[in-house]
């Protein structure tokens, strides 16, 4: 009975005690599990600012992408810096700590990319797209640092990923350098994950779990996909990814099991392991249709062990 009230527990309580409709609503109200006036206000504020910013920025991107003939090159080049200055002024006026200020910096960061694209279009600089992305990533780093805004950091990481992929696509042999690219992408996002987790211990604004989960999911998807590709197609290449994967999985288990209790990360880890082990055994042992029964049993056993282990871990944390 001393457990914290949440929707599930309160509804269980209503079921067992046979509460009336009025009593159910009152219990949800007392338990403060449904949003109150202040929560609705914050929700609407965030929703409308985010949607407004997204639509507004997309509108600006299309406006310049249309390449309106009536706009001279100076006007085109002049409009964007004016918009950037206006957004920076807005961020300064509303303070960088406010949501409007953070969204204004996000807007300014997007406009830098549009400016670089228009500049390249007008002067035919001959620069490759990867150069534009690298320039964009480097130019906005100051704003990313001062904004203290998880969405802007995720946007920056997205740009860094795009820069790396485009660099390899446009300057290297795609097939030969595929292995190297995937490893670099994995290491870059892993570094971001580590930095974010360390930062979260010191700064409140970095405690946004959605961002950490998003980076972890992306990192897992890169390393798992690459390892499966390696298992089936690229066994001729050095097994660096195998060693990296083993270290990564063990580190994730150690960190989220003993240091930072987070079951969702352990579940992602288990799911990745199920996929990798199934792929490895499937490649080595499945030669006939009869072998599929063994595969079904292996998946069944792996999933059973994973679920039992995860539930055991959660129980041990609750004690």
């Amino acid at each position, binding site marked *: 009975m001393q457990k914290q009230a949440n929707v599930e527990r309160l509804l269980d309580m209503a079921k067992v005690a046979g*509460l009336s409709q009025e009593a*159910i*609503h009152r219990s949800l109200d*007392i338990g403060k599990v449904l949003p109150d006036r202040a929560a609705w206000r914050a929700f609407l504020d965030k929703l409308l600012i985010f949607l407004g910013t997204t639509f507004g920025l997309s509108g600006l991107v*299309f*406006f310049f992408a249309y390449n309106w003939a009536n706009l001279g090159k100076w006007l085109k080049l002049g409009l964007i810096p004016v918009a950037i200055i206006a957004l920076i002024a807005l961020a300064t006026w509303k303070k960088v700590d406010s949501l409007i200020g953070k969204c204004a910096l996000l807007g300014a960061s997007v406009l830098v990319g549009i400016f670089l694209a228009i500049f390249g279009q007008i002067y035919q600089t001959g620069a490759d797209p990867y150069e534009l992305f690298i320039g964009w990533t480097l130019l906005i780093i100051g704003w990313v640092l001062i904004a203290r805004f998880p969405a802007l950091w995720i946007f920056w990481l997205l740009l860094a990923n795009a820069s790396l992929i485009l660099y390899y696509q446009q300057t290297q042999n795609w097939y030969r350098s595929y292995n190297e690219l995937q490893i670099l992408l994995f290491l870059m996002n892993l570094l971001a994950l580590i930095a974010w987790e360390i930062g979260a211990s010191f700064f409140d604004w970095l405690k946004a779990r959605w961002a950490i989960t998003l980076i972890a999911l992306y990192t897992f998807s890169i390393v798992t996909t690459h390892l499966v590709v390696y298992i089936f197609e690229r066994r001729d290449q050095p097994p660096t990814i195998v060693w990296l994967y083993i270290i990564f999985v063990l580190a994730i288990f150690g960190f989220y099991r003993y240091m930072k209790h987070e079951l969702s990360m352990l579940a992602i880890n288990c799911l990745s392991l199920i996929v990798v082990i199934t792929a490895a055994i499937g490649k080595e042992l499945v030669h006939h249709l009869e072998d599929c029964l063994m595969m079904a049993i292996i998946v069944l056993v792996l999933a059973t062990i994973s679920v039992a282990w995860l539930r055991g871990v959660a129980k041990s944390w609750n004690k």
Partner: protein
Amino acid sequence: MEQITPDKKISLQMVLDQLKQENLAPADADAKIQTYIESKPDVPNPWYIQVMVGFSAWLAAIFFLIFLIGVFRIEEKSFLVLGLLFCAAACFLKRMPKDVDLFVIFLNQLALIANVTGQVFILIWVGCTFRDETPICLAAIILQLIMLLVYPDKIQRFATPVVIISAIIPILQELSIQFSMHFFIVAVAAGTLAVWLFLFQPFFIKWADYAHPIAYGLILSFLHLLLVSVGEGYEYDRMFKGLVGGCWWPTTVGLMLCFWVLIAHIFRFYKQPLEKLFLIVLLASGVLAWITRESPGILGSIFILVLGFYRSTKLVQALTIIFLAIFVIHYYYFMDVTLLTKSFILMGVAVLLFMTRAFLVCKCCCTKEEKPCI
């Protein structure tokens, strides 16, 4: 009795004490709840573990099906018998008493695999017998309804609306009723809204083990169904053009009405008068619906986002944001106007949203004590 203060975490005991003080809970409620809490196993089973279990069972079932069909060369008529046997075995495994945790999980997984295999076998038999898509879809719907009743499992209950709604689409294609897709999507939206609004009613609480997974299944089905509106190309035209009739505004109008019902319900719940603030929300959503009339996914996602927030479910909100991103990107790329017009429309929407914020958040939502933010 512990006092409830704004910064204190509220326990079940505190809620119950308060209810009893207000004569809203029976005097013997403590004992009943205590007994229930003690009898309920304290095993955490969050949604991501359920996803992992579902994914693994589905993967294992594929291997198992390949093995059975490939090795044994099963005759057509045997599929029905085997299918029924597997479904019965699944129900038996799921319902048999179990003690050891690891064994429970293993048998539950095995039951899920038997369930998937059994259902696939029965559908193969229906396909072989009738050689048509519609009987297969009808059989899938009936099977799901039967398994919902006899197979006590969260994943099955979640999958039921997803499979049924997916199976209705080919039936609609077969019937070739013009504009039927609009009615179907709006009906699913209305059904989803009804289930989520009634979730806190005593009757639904009594059936919460069924109602909650079904409610989540309906959300996923609805968002998934809206993806039809972002499709394009020859195959898409062949499958859906007749059902949709070349335009999407009827769906948007239906969704707008659902959204308005939700807003009215929220206002009633919080005992707010249906006056100025209510009219502003209706007007703003009406304008947004008009602007995005050919992209119903945007209003549909916002509708689910508000519903998810109203019911305090972060999972629904996170899922909806992913779908919203898909719909917004689609809106940018496929509007049938020039880039310049598109850019003006998008900037117009942004201005509308910021103006709505100014009215809603800063003027209307502020109490007298709060300082307006603009």
